[in-house]
């Protein structure tokens, strides 16, 4: 292929053009435009002509009590579900990696929740955890461990816990696949050497396996943290933010502010606050992994 010739360059450009066009029109432009919106007063009364209000929207976000509630909710969701699904995913991956038969079967079984639709999984969880749901039926009528129905979905932390359980259940499979691929890259020689040095299975895991798949762990950590902060469907469908926005997360709150009250300026500022928080979180994670690298 004569990529250095002019004809080649034209061809290259033409082939890149659709991808670039999609990226510029549907990703870059909306992002820049949203940044512009975040400095404007864009509410119902200023939908057509938006005055510049500087940091007004950012001040409104940071002084809003509900913002801090939903921010803490998103943070807790991330801090619980990310380590939760990573540890379980790694555990399952190690188990599957060490069995000789039925590897494919187990991989499929653990991966099934990943390909299940969020909407369907959320609705099923809602039915299970309803006050009149399957779990309460089991607890009160079958196992008789509770006299009255427990109101799982009706308070802040128990409602969020249901969403977190769903998040972990649904994420284990993805982690399993990622970690399984990483585990299979670890050279058998290392284990052999460790064994000769007298390492038991647990020590091998700590000193050989974990350092070898550190890159994958960082990748999963960053990706999942972004995903954790972006949780939307399950919250919207399981609790809908009830009671009184106490179970809302950053995205469901953003959706409410923009589409229920028309505060697009506030929502735009909120999205950049969220991006900033994610940026800081990712930087911390990179630094953490790097410092471990030096050890």
């Amino acid at each position: 292929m004569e990529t250095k010739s002019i004809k080649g360059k034209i061809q290259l450009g033409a082939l890149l053009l659709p991808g670039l066009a999609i990226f510029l029109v549907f990703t870059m432009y909306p992002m820049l435009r949203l940044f512009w919106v975040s400095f404007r007063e864009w509410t119902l009364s200023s939908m057509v002509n938006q005055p510049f209000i500087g940091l007004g929207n950012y001040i409104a976000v940071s002084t809003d009590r509900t913002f801090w509630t939903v921010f803490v909710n998103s943070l807790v969701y991330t801090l619980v579900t990310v380590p939760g699904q990573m540890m379980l995913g790694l555990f399952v991956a190690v188990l599957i990696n060490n069995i000789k038969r039925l590897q494919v079967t187990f991989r499929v079984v653990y991966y099934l929740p990943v390909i299940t639709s969020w909407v369907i999984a959320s609705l099923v969880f809602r039915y299970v955890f309803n006050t009149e749901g399957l779990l309460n039926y089991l607890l009160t009528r079958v196992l008789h461990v509770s006299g009255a129905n427990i109101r799982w979905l009706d308070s802040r932390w128990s409602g969020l816990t249901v969403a977190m359980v769903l998040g972990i259940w649904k994420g284990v499979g993805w982690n399993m696949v990622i970690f399984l691929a990483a585990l299979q890259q670890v050279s058998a020689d290392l284990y052999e050497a460790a064994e000769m040095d007298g390492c038991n299975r647990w020590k091998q895991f700590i000193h050989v396996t974990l350092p070898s798949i550190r890159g994958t762990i960082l990748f999963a950590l960053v990706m999942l943290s972004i995903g954790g902060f972006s949780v939307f469907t399950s919250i919207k469908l399981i609790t809908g933010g009830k009671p009184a926005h106490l179970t809302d997360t950053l995205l469901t709150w953003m959706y409410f502010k923009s589409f229920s009250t028309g505060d697009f300026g506030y929502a735009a500022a909120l999205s950049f606050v969220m991006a900033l928080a994610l940026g800081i979180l990712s930087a911390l994670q990179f630094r953490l992994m790097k410092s471990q690298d030096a050890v």
Partner: protein
Amino acid sequence: MLKPKRFLLVLCLIMSVVIIVPAVHASEPVTLNFWHHYSAQSKENETLTNVLIPQFEKENPDIKVNAVSHEWAELHDKILISVSTNQLPDVMRADIAWLPEFQQLGVLVPLNKEMADFDSVAGQLLDSAMSTAKIAGDTYGLGLNTNSKILFYNTDMLNAAGVNVPTTTDEWAAAVRKLSGNNAQGQQVWGWNEPGLSGWNLAPFIWSFGGSLTNDEQTAASGHINSAETVNAIETFVSLVSEGALTGFNSGDIPMTDGFGTGRYAMMLEGPWKIAELTGAYPDVAYGTAMMPAGKGGSVSVLGGEDIAMFNSANKEAAWKFMKFMTSEFAQTQMATVGQIPVSKAALDSQTVQEQEFAPFLEAIQTAKARPTVAAWSKMDNELMVAVNAVIQGEKSAQQAMDDLAVVFDGLLKE
């Protein structure tokens, strides 16, 4: 050999053009775009597209109507987005709760100022329905259809408990308490279902208890949302909740229709659509209907329904013709046969309308009130929900919560 490559190149270029160049479409000079939220599969939509629009186009051969059906929530959001991209339709059927918002956007036509025959047209429609379109002195739409909520009660449950259908707010609270407890299967049952904590849910109680949300001019709320009567309504409501006699607004609760149909909720306040829902899902449940129980303020339910309005960008002459047609006796009677409660006085008097399933609601409409027609209402509605939830959670007393809410309401009404 080059052919597949060249084909790929051409394809890529075409794709780029399609992505970058926005579609340009030529519109015919007299096509009216009408956005509504009659469900696509509904009888209402069938009547609209097969009876009403053909009739209108026959009467006005120079106008074509392009009716587009949206989901209820989607239509609201789509209008908000279309305003900023300047792609609004000519005419829309809007939930009465949306009109003040759209008016604040500055995209609606003040009909009383711009239409010469406005007074005679408006005079043929129900005053209460027209009040929903009146914002700060001007009228931005015509009432199109109306509704309200009345009390539904499970006949068997009331008989078994020896409870009469409540006609006063005191009787109501006593009945709700008495109907609660456990049924023969040991399941919990509730005297009342209330599926939310918004104004749509709470206003009938506030009003019937003698309270109010704002002053009559809709400019201030202090002394209204925190009046003794309003606080009494909230206190009664919350005490029924804490006694386990009233539920429905929690995420984990049994949905309203299912709970009523299976005898878990004894009573509820609901609109005419519930009749069809119950007939479809629970044809065996025996139930009756009654007016909202009366208190110090009388029997006051909440007004729902839709208005028809036109946007600034519309072909105003054609749009006005269509709006007049949709509120005419003919169109209103046609829509009444598929369950839409008319606002045309002539249609309301007709035998056809009096015989419809929604007849019990016609009385409630006479005394029902509209929620405040102010743009800040959706925010106020949310604050009301948050405030009442704080009382339910025991964080604040009803008086404290309503006093705090009055300050918030006053601020929002000044915006």
